[in-house]
């Protein structure tokens, strides 16, 4: 944006805010520096096109431009104005503890896009007198976003644009996937995108670090809507949610002074601190975990779990 254009747009904004009635295009052309409404070469056409573009630019910034009849009685000519109450950030003040909390929150993002957006919000709040405080020394909370897929996916989520990308699913090859992205979720330090998978015709979650190629938009903006009631965060975090009906108990003997993590999960026998009852859900994952303790643990019951652990240990012994 050239210097002159920025200046013109500020003057236009100020003129629209200062007026107490709707101003016509021609009036604005004469009032605002930088317009030439009477240019003889195009008969004012160049000015009108310029004004149309300027108007759009203000709206894209979120400036509420109102249109209405210039003359309330003969309402065929349309004019423009900005209502101050729609434009201005409402009064806001922060108590010191609130300012500290906001200061910590504003620094959470380390992606260029999100930290830029949060910073511009913080400047507006500070301009209204609600200044966030720097978080206390010694407390650093940042959510990293170094996956290259993050920014293009965020743009696509906001614009409601379908995307395609190459995806390496665990234990299988790379495949091209097509998705209507609903939202991005950071969970356990990793980023996921949830949405409607057009290949599977079902909701699916993808991990950004497993996208092996660039994320490419496949449609225009606004090409789908997010179904009501969708909870992308739950889609991502529920992958390990256990069904309480599946809860069972394993009786396990542990070697003294070992298996501390396992001891935390279970309950020791009253008379024997090395005899544990440990709740578990999925057989497979729990048996893997127990195999990891090697001879430090001995599964007594149930028999199926005991057998599953023995099978795993035999597989280790057999090599391939």
């Amino acid at each position, binding site marked *: *944006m050239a210097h002159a254009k920025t200046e013109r747009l500020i003057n236009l904004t100020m003129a629209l805010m200062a007026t107490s009635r709707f101003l016509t295009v021609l009036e604005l052309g004469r009032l605002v520096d930088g317009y030439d409404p009477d240019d003889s070469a195009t008969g004012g056409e160049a000015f009108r096109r310029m004004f149309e573009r300027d108007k759009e630019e203000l709206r894209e910034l979120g400036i509420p431009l109102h249109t209405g009849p210039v003359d309330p009685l003969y309402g065929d000519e349309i004019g423009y104005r900005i209502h101050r109450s729609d434009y201005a950030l409402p009064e806001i003040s922060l108590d010191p503890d609130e300012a500290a909390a906001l200061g910590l929150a504003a620094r959470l993002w380390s992606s260029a896009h999100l930290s830029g957006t949060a910073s511009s919000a913080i400047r507006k709040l500070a301009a209204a007198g609600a200044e966030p405080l720097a978080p206390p020394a010694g407390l650093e909370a940042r959510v990293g976003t170094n996956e290259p897929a993050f920014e293009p996916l965020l743009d696509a989520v906001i614009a409601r644009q379908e995307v395609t990308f190459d995806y390496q699913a665990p234990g299988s090859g790379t495949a091209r996937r097509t998705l209507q992205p609903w939202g991005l979720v950071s969970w*356990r330090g990793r980023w996921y995108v949830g949405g409607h998978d057009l290949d599977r015709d079902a909701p699916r979650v993808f991990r950004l670090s497993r996208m092996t190629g660039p994320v490419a938009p496949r449609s225009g903006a606004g090409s789908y809507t997010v179904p009501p009631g969708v909870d992308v965060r739950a889609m991502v975090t529920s992958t390990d949610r256990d069904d309480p009906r599946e809860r069972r108990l394993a009786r396990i003997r542990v070697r003294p002074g070992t298996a501390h993590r396992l001891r935390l999960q279970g309950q020791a026998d009253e008379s024997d601190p090395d005899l544990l009852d440990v709740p578990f859900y999925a057989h497979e994952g729990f048996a893997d975990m127990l195999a990891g303790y090697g001879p430090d643990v001995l599964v007594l019951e149930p028999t199926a779990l005991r057998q599953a652990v023995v099978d795993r240990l035999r597989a*280790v012994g057999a090599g391939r």
Partner: protein
Amino acid sequence: MSATAASTERLPRLLSLVPWLRTHPGVTFAEAAEAFGVSERQLRADVSLLFLCGLPGGSPGDLIDIDFEGDHITLLDPQVLDRPLRLTADEGNALLVAVRALSDVPGLTDRDALDRVRGKLETAVGGSTEEQPAVSVALEAPAPDAMLALRRGVDEQRRLHLRYLGAARDEVTERDVDPLRLVLTDGHWYLEAYCHRAEALRLFRADRIQEANVLDVPAAPPPSAVPRDLADGLFKPTPDQLLVELELEPGAQWVADYYPCEFTRLEPDGTLRVALRTPDPAWIRSLVLRLAGRARVIVPAQLAGEVQQLASAAIAQYETAEPSSPPESSPLRGAPAAHKPEPGGTAG
């Protein structure tokens, strides 16, 4: 930053700069430049441009008026631009999502203050926040008691006594530490502290701290104990650590995603060959056992043999008809080692 990005950011910046100068009278160019994330030169250009802007009429009384005294800027007349523009939905969400994420971590910070901020932001955005935010963050929430104690230790600079479940090996230790900071990285909260037991700076994963007590002793870390730069990740393999080569079948190839590997190579038979460094072979032994035949140690051969022996010893216990008491000393554990964060911090 491209020229287009630079120029489309200029108009909103200037519209915020006018009311911001009003609430920061006498601010310096350098301070304003820092607050707006631009160079001082750019900020001077911005202020010069504002001088030319004003209400229709163009007489001196219609223009935005700014006064300079040395390096200090004071806004005399903002004309109609005395208030900032409302937050856009994106701006409001960027803050609201962060506030919500922090509220989910009990003990970290004043929950009540976060709730009030959230209410005020929601009012400021004016109900235009989306039901389904583009971005959300689920932060780890360790035990609230431990988090409270860690916060107090850091804030009041007091020594902490920790009961800590080691990350690299399965072992509970007690230690006194002088806290430096509480930091969220790679999805986990860590206490970075000078450990008097290890006589070195250590990172303790908050969810493995079983108990933390604030001691009535001021923290006194040695001057050499300065926080590490965690920008490149927590686990920095060093050449003195053991280099291990593993062969991973498809069901175990997530290992390459989770831990920094010196190399990874997909073999024609579909297995993945990876090399990684570890501060503690106990961690590799346990990992390979847990992978239940889907992973093999290739190098060093001695470690491969140890894994086999552990598997055989465990099978032998199951083969005895009556489960007898296991021997007193554990073959899984070697000599106690100083605590190190495990690679990627996710095993176990």
